[in-house]
């Protein structure tokens, strides 16, 4: 018995001891790792695809609009704005600002994803053509992310290699160095990629050229560099001359959901693709329900107004961003179709079966009748009389004080460019609208600005070509301007009229050195707060906390 038991015991111990290392080894069967996945063709393609996802975080999302549109002369904080540090440069705009922190992380993640993909390229397992294409695409995207990083934060970390292992220090690189990499990348992209309009959202040579034109103008205006101006003009003209792009004659229909596919919209050079199949609309988080959200942010609170309820057509009122009086006043709506093409001013009562006599205060209002009219002018006695008992008027003096101070933040003349009445439900957050990044109109504006000082005649031609296309029918000649009108202020005004809401403004004001003066002049919320330091955003505190060389890598000046 004892022997048997001893034998049993031995067996137990041996069973425990044998091949412990085998017993403890682990294989992750439900997750992929770089090695070996990125050594395969599928893996490299997946790595390249992932470099595109970062653009989904910027175009069609809430906070990039806050960064690029509010805190400028064009947009103020709406009734449910979530980032008043950004819109107002308030005292708590600092390294703790959560959206800037998030976007620092997002953009550097996108950058690291590009660097990881570039490390795999060229790969012997891909065809030469594919190697060239992939490298061109990823280089373009890297240049794009680097541009946003350096324009937002300035002389910060310039990484061109993937992160490996623990990093505890950070090094500043100059904006100049950033642009060296940006232009280098764009040149490779132009060399590697085939010319053509992007029809699927992939980067083409046209995209790279148009973006290089933007980058050239950016550097030209911020460093007053004549060669850069010339380069910008040349590239912009090349894209225009390609003949693959055409301005719409009806500005409003440019924003119609019918034309929301960048691949078929003749004005669109580069767009961030969103689809009708929401399962493909994610970003680094692939979850469905993301898509393009920009339709939400400019909508005012119409659904508490007489005869109104929330509807798919009028959208979901997030009331994040309100136009400044200055923006409204930039338009001469009598000759410029872009006022009507950019803003919504009339609302029709939409409560089902609404019958006259049921809306208190507006006894004549019935379903389909006008519910509200927004006027950027003061309502005349005639207008008021006409509206009495029929609809509500929000006029200039209801919405703004004479200096432009907002009186209402929830009812306003709303930007309508991104509306999507094709969504399935009124509260649906995602839209399939593509995020238009570069429109051909921008090339006209770049050409005009870049040539303004060296060849005003040619500059004027591009400017008037654009403006005439934007004229109310029959008012083409009224839209024409003269060479003497071409000043940087006029160019900025024109860019506002053309590009309002399209994520340009803060960066335009910054590169032209106008940020502080324009905000002081036109932004009544932020005028008292803005300072020169605000030309750079604060570096996130989490970045500063995590490094050991805190004396070398400090917060941007002026932020504490």
């Amino acid at each position: 018995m004892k022997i048997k038991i001893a034998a049993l015991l031995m067996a137990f111990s041996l069973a425990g001891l044998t091949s412990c290392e085998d017993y403890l080894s682990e294989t992750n069967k439900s997750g992929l790792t770089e090695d070996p996945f990125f050594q395969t063709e599928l893996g490299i393609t997946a790595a390249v695809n992932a470099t595109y996802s970062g653009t989904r975080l910027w175009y069609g999302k809430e906070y990039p609009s806050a960064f690029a549109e509010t805190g400028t002369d064009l947009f103020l904080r709406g009734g449910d704005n979530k980032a008043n540090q950004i819109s107002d440069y308030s005292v708590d705009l600092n390294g703790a600002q959560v959206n800037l922190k998030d976007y620092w992380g997002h953009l550097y993640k996108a950058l690291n994803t590009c660097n990881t993909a570039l490390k795999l390229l060229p790969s012997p397992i891909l065809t030469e053509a594919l190697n060239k294409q992939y490298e061109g695409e990823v280089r373009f995207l890297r240049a794009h992310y680097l541009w946003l990083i350096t324009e937002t934060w300035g002389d910060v970390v310039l990484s061109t290699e993937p992160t490996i292992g623990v990093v505890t220090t950070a090094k500043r690189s100059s904006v100049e160095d950033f642009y060296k990499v940006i232009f280098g990348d764009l040149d490779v992209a132009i060399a590697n990629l085939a010319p053509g309009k992007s029809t699927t959202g992939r980067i083409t040579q046209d995209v790279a050229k148009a973006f290089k034109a933007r980058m050239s103008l950016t550097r030209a205006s911020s460093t007053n560099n004549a060669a850069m101006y010339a380069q910008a003009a040349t590239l912009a003209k090349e894209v225009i001359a390609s003949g693959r792009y055409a301005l719409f004659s009806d500005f409003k229909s440019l924003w119609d959901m019918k034309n929301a596919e960048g691949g078929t919209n003749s004005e669109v050079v580069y767009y961030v693709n969103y689809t009708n199949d929401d399962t493909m609309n994610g970003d680094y988080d692939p979850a469905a329900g993301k898509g393009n959200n920009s339709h939400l942010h400019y909508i005012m609170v119409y659904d508490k107004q007489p005869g109104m309820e929330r509807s798919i057509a009028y959208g979901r009122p997030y009331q994040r961003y309100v136009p400044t009086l200055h923006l409204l006043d930039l338009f001469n709506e009598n000759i410029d179709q872009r006022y009507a093409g950019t803003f919504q001013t009339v609302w029709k009562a939409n409560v089902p079966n609404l019958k006259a006599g049921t809306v208190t205060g507006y006894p004549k209002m019935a379903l389909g009748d006008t519910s509200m009219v927004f006027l950027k002018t003061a309502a005349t006695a005639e207008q008021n009389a006409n509206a009495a008992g029929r609809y509500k008027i929000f006029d200039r003096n209801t919405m703004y004080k004479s200096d432009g101070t907002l009186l209402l933040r929830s009812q306003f003349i709303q930007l309508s460019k991104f509306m999507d009445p094709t969504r399935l439900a009124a509260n649906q957050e995602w839209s399939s609208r593509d995020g238009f990044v570069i429109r051909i109109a921008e090339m006209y504006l770049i050409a005009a600005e870049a040539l303004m000082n060296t060849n005003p005649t040619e500059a004027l031609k591009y400017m008037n070509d654009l403006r005439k296309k934007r004229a109310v029918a029959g008012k083409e000649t009224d839209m024409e301007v003269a060479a003497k009108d071409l000043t940087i202020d006029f160019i900025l005004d024109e860019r506002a009229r053309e590009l309002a809401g399209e994520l340009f403004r803060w960066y335009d004001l910054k590169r032209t050195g106008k940020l502080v003066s324009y905000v002081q002049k036109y932004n009544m919320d932020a005028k008292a707060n803005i300072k020169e330091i605000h030309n750079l955003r604060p570096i996130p505190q989490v970045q500063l906390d995590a490094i050991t060389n805190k004396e070398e890598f400090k917060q941007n000046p002026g932020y504490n």
Partner: protein
Amino acid sequence: MFRKLQSASALGLLLMYGILPVGSQKVHAGNHLKFTENLVVSADGKNRSNSVFDITGKVTGDNGEELPGVSILLKGTTTGATSDANGTYKLTIPAGNVTLVFSYVGYISQEIPVNNRSVIDVKLLADTKALEEVVVVGYGTMKKSDVTGAITSVKAKDITAIPTTNALRSLQGKVSGIDITQTSGQPGADINIVLRGNRSLKADNKPLVLVDGIPYGSFIDINPTDIASIEVLKDVASTAIYGTRGANGVIIITTKKGSSGKSTISFNSYVSMNKKALYPRMMNGEEYAQQKREAYRTTNGDVYRKDEDIFQVTELQYIKDKQFEDWQSYIFHSGLMQNYEINLTGGSEKTTFATSFGYQKDKGLLLDDIYRRLNGKVSVDHKITDRVRVGVSAIYSYKNQDKRDNPLNMANKILPIAKAFNDDGTLILNPAPGYSAQFTPLADEQPGVFVNNIVDKRLFSSAYLDVKITNELFLKSTIGLDFRDYRRGYYKGYNTVANAGRNSTSGVELNNYFNYTWENTLNYNKTIGNHQIQGLLGTSSLGTKYEEYTSSGNNQASPLTSFHDLNSNTISKAIGSQLRETKIASFFGRINYKLSNKYIFQASLRTDGSSVLAVGNKWGYFPSVSGAWRLIEEPFLRDSKVVNDLKLRVSWGKSGNSAIDPYATKGGLGLSAYAFGTSAAFGYAPKVIPNPNLTWETTGTWNAGVDFGLVGNRISGTIDMYRSRTKDLLLPSLLPTHTGYAEILENIGQVENKGVELAITSQNINAKSFNWSTDWTFTLNREKIIALNNGVTRNEANSWFVGEPTKVFYNYKKIGIWQLGEEEAALNFGSNKPGDVKVADMNGNGVVDPGDRTTFSQVPKFSFGVNNHFEYKNIDLSVFVYGRIGHYINYEYNASAYKPSALENSSNVDYWTPENPTNAFPRPNSSYSTTNYLYQSTLGYVKGSFVKIRDVSLGYNIPSALVKKVGVGRVRVYGTLQNYFTFSKIKDYDPERGGDLSFPLVKQMIFGVNIDF
């Protein structure tokens, strides 16, 4: 009954015979004694002689109560019997000068010469020397007097004294060093449990909970009446034998086993009427309207605007008609919990069994929020030969829960100026006129629109083999298999709180666990003169496997198919699956040495290998040493009248923690989405940065304690002091985010915990018919982060700060409201105006900046429990007071539920206006959205200290003469008030809930009955 089962429970741990000194056997032995003593009841009559005769009698206790299950043994033989439920026994013995030995756990054994009597009634005296109590330790049991570590034992009586769904909750306030809070008042909610503070910042801080030696998890859905004892192992000397997972303490639950003799049935049941305990109300219609007027006045140059400008027409009509709603009144109902448990135990000499069955139904405060549980246990123990025993046990549970989404968020923000129902009684979906985002909080109560059903099945089984190799050497092999199947299916229609008019959502989550444990131990036990030596060697292997499958989609064709036709979803279909496997292999040993019953020494070593750690770093070594000096055995104390017991204990040990996600060392890619045209372009981007060096997090602990008994053991107790240092924390250390990663898991940083624990029991009055005793516990723990990754002193993303506890809030500190007359100071400090929140200038530089943020500890300074127990004749009353003092909570009512914008309904607070210069809450202001009011988040931090009379319980034992007539052994009826009296500085709120406004804690009025047949 309790005592009987308690003694029987020890049976399961046969090894105790190996560990316990031989001399103690009689003291603790119950009826299992005859088992191991190889009692053979002569059945065939061969041994009978003419000189045998029958003896009968009755065994009673101190107060005359009949004692069932008492072992009666003919001294010097193996012949014996057990008393039945009425305390009577019958035994056939040889004539002559023989002696009977009566023994029963908790009572002093008596030897009585028969002297040819045929009837012997015996009165056993309770053994007040609780020191002889046996406690369960890692891989064995031990006399309490021999314990060198810090172990608290809770017996069955205390576990079932108060009805509870999770037996671990009965430890709240009763075991010092353990911090238990309820997570929510929703039926089926888990509890938070932390032992001696938080050590790990990333790895799990939950103690290891073992049921009969096998890991179970902290949600104990075992019938409390199946539990014989719960032991809490607190210091590392006690837990190091569990090396790997012992760092957070170990809780050992021992279930009851059957015993041979007459079968016993016991039935326990209670019904609990549940109501919401404390819960604050929101503004009513008038209050809200006034706040909205103030909000618009603020943005209109201090001039009130006309109501017509700020309320829409229907709202004005409602205000005029006083058409207001109190939404909470529709949400809350009374809950009802019913619980039934039945146990059957019994067995023959060779085979014993225990079975139980339980049913519980807990109807929550919300309609259709129902938790149902069927559970039970079967265990069988069988003796194959004198030396070999086997046993199997299975604990099963079946849970079926209909779980509501939290409607209170909506109920608390929807305007009171509203109409909930149409005149015909139907629900209005958008009851607040003009607010189409404000959906009725009652939406989920419409028939068919909301299904969220969880079915959770678990079979927790184990089997063992015991072999007594020699009289000194014992082998035990245990295998545990734990299966769990979980399914959650949901359908949330278009018109539900979750979807508020958007798409319907439906989906199913399926997952299953399979865990196995295989442990082998060899015990050696030898006494030579004054020296007692015990040794233990063992191996353990443990594996877990978790599989998960999920699928979901939006816009299902019809609600009719609930979650059973997911393919009819038209958009956003998503599927997912996951597999996670972990393994741990271990070898361990322990040696105990006792000299002259005075000096006790113990040392142990365990080595663990964990699959989740990096290759080359998988193995860790966890030693412990401890000693005790029983001063009471020294000549100068032995005869003391004042000091009845005194023992000093010191221990040191190291334990480890590798409770991180599997595959963490390997890094990983994350799926990303894009599309080219209409073709999907999913990609993979670097997501988790690999760390090939991850290894054990280790905790070293010093513990010193004293156990004492004074004045005839009228006052007895334990005091422990400890200090633990956790090193090489498995910590997601901050990476500068310019790397593209936010963090990397590293072994970095240190956390310290130190504290004092007290547990004292005093017998205040011990008269013949009246007893009053008090149990006191006191827990004080200080936790502190000593270091994070090199040079980093704060990790804001996770709110970790060197020098602070592991759980803190980090924000500005509100000190008041800027008042009229302070305009200039307010402006200079940070562009504030009167009516804005005034925050403290912590760094004293005159302006507000991020350096002014400070920490608010979420960890209590101390907690205590006082349990007074009174007994008068058949009546018992206990009053349990529990307090948790000195921590901050983030009180939702004060922070995000206050809506200065008046865009939504608001908590009813004292807000600033020019006429009301309060320092409590800032001025309403219509120009801000609900969340971006400057420093609004600072309003929520309030001291969460509370003292509550957690339980008041009154019981009555129906006199046995009465119940005997209907053939029942014992009947106890009781009524309990739970959570009825809470005292704190927060009005109308129970801070134990932690600040949240969802699913408030309930107060329970319970009526129950215990019947033993």
